[in-house]
């Protein structure tokens, strides 16, 4: 599934034209704040062919099931297939999060997208009712690899799996208050998924600008890394990048632990912005220390 390639491997959407369809299950591991294993199952194979999979073991060990529906294709059989999978999965693992991506919506007009979503939700609901499964929670997302919707969807899916999420969100809310930030995200740098954000609503444009700010930082820094591999980086300071915008807003990035970065949008009203930035630096450092503690504790469990 090239969704995975785009989100987890930083692949350009156009490059996916050359990917072959998935025919074998593959598993990959991602180490970030949580250790994430992404397993990809092909659509063509019969999941319940016992010789190929230990379906029971598979479904009881996972936290979330992500099912991708091609919205540009005839999707009725995909929906029937989904209902069968959900029925089986629920019988093995009642804590499973079921996430459905209505994918490739770039090909549909604005009106038709919502129409399609309504149609799909309706049909899946009906199918599940037929199986007597009316209490099952399913989340639906409209996605495309040509914009940030796929990252947003995976962000929200991954967040459901983070045990410490409430604590993280609290910490970010505190940081907001004490540093007068407008918005703050904790990003996984490689995938551009945000593992947590403060409790104010997420505006997709702000998210995109913050995610792209990570790329700007990494790309520029990469050009002037101290060349020789012989000498490891001497700079003990974490990477930090600050950019003032004409609107008066400021983008702020600071590297955290375990492949995470904190990216915030703030506003420096007065002339004395060096002081205001120093306050933010200090508070972000405090946040980072809490993050380290949180991480240690969660590992002991």
């Amino acid at each position, binding site marked *: 599934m090239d969704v995975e390639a785009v989100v987890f491997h930083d692949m350009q959407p156009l490059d996916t034209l050359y990917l072959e369809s998935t025919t074998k299950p593959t598993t990959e591991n991602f180490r970030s704040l949580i250790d994430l294993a992404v397993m990809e199952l092909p659509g063509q194979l019969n999941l319940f062919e016992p010789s190929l999979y230990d379906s029971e073991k598979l479904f009881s060990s996972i936290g979330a099931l992500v099912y991708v529906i091609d919205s540009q294709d005839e999707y009725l059989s995909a929906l029937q297939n989904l209902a069968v999978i959900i029925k089986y999965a629920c019988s093995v693992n009642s804590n499973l999060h079921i996430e459905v991506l209505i994918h490739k919506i770039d090909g549909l007009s604005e009106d038709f997208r919502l129409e399609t979503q309504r149609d799909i939700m309706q049909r899946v609901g009906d199918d599940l009712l037929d199986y007597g499964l009316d209490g099952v929670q399913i989340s639906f997302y409209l996605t495309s690899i*040509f914009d940030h919707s796929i990252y947003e969807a995976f962000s929200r899916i991954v967040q459901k799996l983070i045990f410490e999420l409430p604590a993280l969100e609290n910490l970010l809310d505190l940081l907001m208050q004490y540093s007068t930030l407008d918005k703050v995200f904790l990003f996984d740098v490689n995938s551009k998924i945000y593992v947590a954000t403060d409790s104010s609503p997420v505006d997709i444009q702000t998210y995109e600008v913050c995610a792209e700010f990570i790329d700007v930082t990494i790309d520029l*820094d990469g050009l002037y*890394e*101290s060349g*020789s591999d012989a000498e490891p980086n001497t700079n003990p300071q974490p*990477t930090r*990048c600050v*950019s003032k*915008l004409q609107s008066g807003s400021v983008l702020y990035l600071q590297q955290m632990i375990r492949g995470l970065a904190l990216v915030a949008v703030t506003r420096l009203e007065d002339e004395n912005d060096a002081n205001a930035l120093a306050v933010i630096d200090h508070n972000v450092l405090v946040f980072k220390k809490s993050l380290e503690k949180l991480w240690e504790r969660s590992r002991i469990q």
Partner: protein
Amino acid sequence: MSSGKKLLLMGRSGSGKSSMRSIIFSNYSAFDTRRLGATIDVEHSNLRFLNNMTLNLWDCGGQDAFMENFLNNDSDSQNVNSSSNIFKKCEVLIHVFDVESKEVQKDIEIFKRVLDNLHKFSPNVKIFILVHKMDLIQINKRQELFDIMFNKLDNVAYENYRFKIKGFATSIWDESLYKAWSQIVCSLIPNISLYEQQLSKFNSIVNAREMILFEKTTFLVISSTNKFTVGGDELDPKRFEKISNIIKTYKQSVNKIRTNFNNLVLHGRGSSIYLDVLTSNIYIMIIVGPPKTSPGYQVDDESLVLENIKIARTLFEKIEKGK
């Protein structure tokens, strides 16, 4: 319009002329170019570049009917697209070749006829050829393919007209486009050496690892100084184009929240990077540290560097005004 410089953009239909123009001068992303239709006759754009220079870009539609019209009818002086009108007073020709073209012979034939007209109407023109859409070619075959094409064209130009041409391999999907256009545009700036002198004077104070000047709307590199490059400091030879590309992408990114950036300060793993407005037409980028690559004292204090840029501003504004 006396200071306007006429640039002719030529090449077969679909070779990518309007795409590159829109990316460099109109803030399109490479994705956006898929929306462009074929150019009808000629699209003119006047672009201010630095303070006192206007680029008059003539993007000439490459469909055969238009080309025949440009190349053939000389006598009809009423026709705005007569060859004399198109080809007179040109400072630069940029001829674009689609690297995947199925009609290379015809492409070359047309190039030859364009040169024939320029020889007649603008014998002092500077000629650049771009072998374009290189992204479609396997990486290890690109250089060879470019060399073959360039040598053919170079022969045509020199054997027949004694024109000396320059060539670049380009693609809208990577930074190669910026390298080509930086060199093309810089060839038109008369006082370019003044920028260079002033920049290295400035760096004798700051002692930075590198300083680069960018034109503000296009992010084309105007000048750079790399004072302390000693043996060990092996920098990426494509870094200027990459920076142009990165910063332009950043500009488009913040455009989504309807604003532009004023500056950017990055303290990274190897160096500190300062990007700031220098004059109303130029951005400056200063790269400082790490100490071992630049002997001697370096200023790497955020407020000091930004303060220095403010002081340098007046010096560069003078050059811009042509004094």
